[in-house]
């Protein structure tokens, strides 16, 4: 017994030392970060040159004003290069360089998002397993978390490879731009690289240590390692976000693009935080979608009921996690757009009212598809539990409410029409539908959709259960009234928005969102407390769900992927002909905005490539599992069906 404790202690110490070593570079770099790092001098004079004589050095201390923070700083870098179209600044193959970079970037982002999201799921699911009192369920959760991380491991190396390809593409095709960007971010470039090393190391220990650390204190340690893994992953993403934030809304440099010595200003640009939040939520929703699609694929190709049961359950968990993060995503997007407008009105109008407005209609359509698919899945899932049928006859009304919200949400402000139709309509704006084309109505539309999704979820929770608490009747009435007034409030505010100034109208989104979120949090919580000790009508028969539901999951994942590609394109192309907005101009022949059709085709090609490659990753996972020695498992009495192992 004593030797076991000693072994455990040693393991804990060894692990702590290892994590400490992994994090050491990051910790060591913090003082440099705090002091602003060394002056990044892209082509600037070497530091000792300035020491030649006092008078000369006095002259060299030049101050300039930060373009965003308006503070004064010592010029510590060269101005942004003024590029010209030619092999020096824009070397190329006989192909559009921008498209190549787009492809490399998008693929790296898809995989990056996936491998950043999956460890967060693992952390949540592993935690659920650890705290679960039901041993069989605990094991199921643990196995599921392991399955998740297993999928992400192959994807992780692909992410690194794609990251390498991306850097080579930058260096080969956009050397001047990449040189400038890396000179600005020089103080944190190595932190980024080292964070990557820390992430990889932690991930490998986390994965390979799974079996060794499956009980007691070691399990908690293993779980806490997932927290560290996610903290590192998040820092990694925030750093990557600071580059795109800088490109869109530069700060920390003067008008010529010269670095002013404060790296925090360069990182903490106007759009950095909204981008961070939006990306975390987006990654989670996307990761959930991909894992759900994986489960759906395995469900559809399952050979027996046991496998079907496991993958049905896995798909449900992944979908639930994805949707949990999808729900706040539109609100994070709203905040981002608000900050974009606050930063540059021009940028906001280009996005939502001007050149790129059509892409936002496509985006709205995709968001609608996501929510419709989610609802459809939940309704189908009612079919796998006895008692669920009592809700099914009301589904048609849900469909109607959802579709009304959806139609309002996707109605374009500027309609596509022939000149003859325009004359028949009597102007560019339709007097009835034109009202759906503005933000006030659209906010109402999306909030109605989300509230209905919450309602569908509450029904799903109740599928095979009847509340047995003494106050069940009162609870139901309260819930009904709450939802009724939530709808009334959302719709009323959408209408009221037409009669008030724009700045007040923008503020109206707050009570609308608050209404939606309160239905989500309060009503779900109320429902759960009503279901404590509920009367079971029948069991959940995992695996007995329609195949249509699995296609809905695949649809959900594809829509996520497509939308991510679309939004990335919109965010990037809003800079128009700037590499770094208003600082470094894009003088390549490709500084124009693609047509909507071309962009849509390009996004579809990226989506297709991602799905083909990730199918390969999934297949690799299956291959590895087949070769693994068969583990003999002792059956647990009365347990739920053992999830089929076979990745």
């Amino acid at each position, binding site marked *: 017994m004593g030797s076991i404790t000693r072994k455990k202690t040693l393991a804990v110490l060894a692990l702590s030392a290892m994590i400490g070593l992994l994090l050491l570079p990051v910790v060591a770099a913090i003082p440099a970060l705090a002091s602003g790092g060394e002056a990044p001098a892209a082509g600037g004079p070497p530091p000792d040159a300035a020491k030649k004589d006092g008078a000369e050095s006095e002259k060299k201390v030049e101050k300039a004003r930060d373009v965003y923070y308006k503070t004064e700083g010592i010029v510590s870098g060269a101005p942004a290069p003024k590029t010209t179209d030619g092999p020096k600044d824009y070397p190329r193959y006989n192909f559009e360089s921008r498209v190549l970079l787009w492809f490399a970037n998008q693929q790296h982002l898809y995989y990056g998002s996936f491998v950043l999201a999956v460890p967060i799921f693992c952390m949540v699911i592993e935690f659920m397993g650890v705290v679960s009192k039901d041993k069989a369920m605990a094991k199921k959760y643990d196995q599921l978390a392991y399955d998740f991380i297993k999928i992400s491991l192959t994807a992780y190396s692909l992410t690194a490879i794609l990251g390498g390809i991306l850097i080579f593409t930058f260096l080969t095709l956009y050397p001047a731009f990449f040189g400038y960007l890396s000179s600005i971010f020089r103080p944190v470039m190595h932190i980024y690289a080292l964070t990557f090393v820390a992430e990889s190391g932690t991930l490998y220990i986390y994965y390979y240590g799974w079996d060794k650390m499956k009980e007691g204190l070691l399990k908690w340690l293993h779980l806490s390692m997932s927290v560290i893994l996610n903290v590192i992953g998040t820092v990694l993403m925030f750093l990557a976000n600071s580059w795109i934030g800088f490109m869109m809304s530069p700060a920390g440099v003067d008008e010529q693009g010269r670095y002013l010595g404060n790296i925090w200003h360069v990182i903490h640009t106007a759009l950095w935080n909204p981008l961070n939040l939006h990306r975390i939520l987006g990654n989670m929703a996307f990761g959930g979608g991909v894992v759900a699609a994986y489960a759906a694929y395995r469900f559809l190709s399952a050979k027996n009921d046991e496998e079907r049961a496991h993958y049905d359950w896995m798909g449900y968990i992944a979908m639930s996690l994805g949707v949990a993060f999808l729900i706040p995503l539109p609100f994070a997007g709203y905040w981002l757009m608000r900050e974009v*407008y606050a930063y*540059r*009105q*021009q940028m906001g*109008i*280009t996005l939502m*009212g*001007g*050149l790129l*407005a*059509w892409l936002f209609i496509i985006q709205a359509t995709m968001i609608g598809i996501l929510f419709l698919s989610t609802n*459809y899945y939940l*309704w189908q899932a*009612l*079919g796998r539990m006895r008692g669920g*049928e009592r809700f*099914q006859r009301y*589904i*048609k*009304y849900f*469909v*109607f409410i*959802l*579709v*009304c919200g*959806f*139609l309002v949400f*996707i109605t*374009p402000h*500027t*309609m*596509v*029409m*022939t*000149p*003859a*139709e*325009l*004359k*028949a309509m*009597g*102007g*560019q*704006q*339709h*007097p*009835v*539908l*034109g009202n*759906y084309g*503005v933000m006030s*109505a659209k906010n109402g539309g999306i909030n109605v959709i989300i509230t209905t999704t919450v309602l569908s979820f509450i029904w799903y929770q109740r599928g095979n259960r009847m509340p047995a608490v003494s106050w069940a009747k009162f609870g139901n009435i309260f819930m009904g009234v709450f939802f009724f007034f939530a709808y009334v409030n959302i719709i009323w505010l959408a209408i009221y928005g*037409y009669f*008030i*100034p*724009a*700045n007040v109208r923008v503020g109206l989104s707050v009570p609308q969102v608050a209404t939606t979120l309160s239905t989500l949090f309060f009503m779900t919580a109320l429902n759960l407390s009503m279901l404590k000790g509920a009367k079971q009508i029948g069991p959940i028969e995992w695996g007995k769900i*329609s195949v*249509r539901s699995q296609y809905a999951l695949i649809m959900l994942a594809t829509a996520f992927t497509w939308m991510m590609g679309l939004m990335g394109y919109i965010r990037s192309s809003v800079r128009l002909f700037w590499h770094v907005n208003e600082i470094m101009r894009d003088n390549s022949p490709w500084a124009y905005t693609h047509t*909507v059709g071309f962009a849509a085709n390009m996004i579809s090609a990226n989506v297709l490539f991602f799905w083909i490659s990730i199918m390969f990753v999934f297949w690799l996972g299956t291959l590895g599992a087949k070769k693994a020695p068969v583990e003999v498992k002792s059956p647990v009495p009365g347990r739920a069906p053992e999830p089929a192992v076979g990745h």
Partner: protein
Amino acid sequence: MTSLKLVEGFMPMQMLFELALCVALFALTSHLLSKSGKAMPRFWQGILFWVFIVSYLKWRVYPPIPFSVRAMYGFVSLIAVFMWVSSNEEDWKKFKQPIMNVLDANTGFHKALRTMFLIAIPIILWGFSYNSFLPNLDEPVELRTVHPAPPASTKVHGKTFVLQTSQNPFRVNPEGKYDQEYTNARIVEQSMGRLMKGDANPWDEKAEGYLKYVREGGEIFFQNCHFCHGDNLNGRGLHAFAFNPIPANFTDPGTIAQLQETFIFWRVSKGGIGLPNEGFPWASVMPPWEQHLTTDEIWKVVLFEYWHTGYYPRTWD
């Protein structure tokens, strides 16, 4: 249907309420029919409901909805019908049954139907192909950007105006200070029509300050702008239909109500010719009014347009 008018000001919600009412009626009818043992097959329920939605959009809503939007609505409705009829296994089986029967049932009727489809489908495809080869004399569809992004600043009569920060110099309170709140309280009211407030009549001889400037803006508007933009500012002036597209309708919530005053100032000053690249294909004949009006006159016209339509200019605070 003509006797049941869509009421101006209530049209968007009226349309949704009408549709909701129809859904309730359909549900009730279906319920009563099935209670009396004459339930309509799910297949025909789905098809008929979709046909109803498409017809409603085509014939009920006036002015006519452009085909692109109707196609979008129609497609979404089709998805909605699919979601409804396949929401549970039993319904889905019922819905599929007639289709499966056409495909493989061995009755005389179904055999005849199969033969009919075999003949009809190629003919329909041929019809589509034939139509697509016919020469089309319609003007091409233009995906116009109605609100192109404005420049950061604009130069009018030698003075540079930063669009993000400039203010209308005539939007002032009695003390002569820029005051949104004061002026917003004096614009016309939007309810059933647009009604002027009793104590805010720009044509009152005693009107001073903001209201006086509105009157002056109105005079300039009626001397120069109303021929195209109309005396109700709804884009239907005397000459409106000579142009394609017709002039902007300021009473629509999607035009000036969405924009900053400085945006309108920029558009009026520079006209169609001053539209940026993304405004392609520059289908606007509006003259650059800076060649005909002073800066003050342009600001006053903008002031009048907001007053008359009852909209507040967009602000960013």
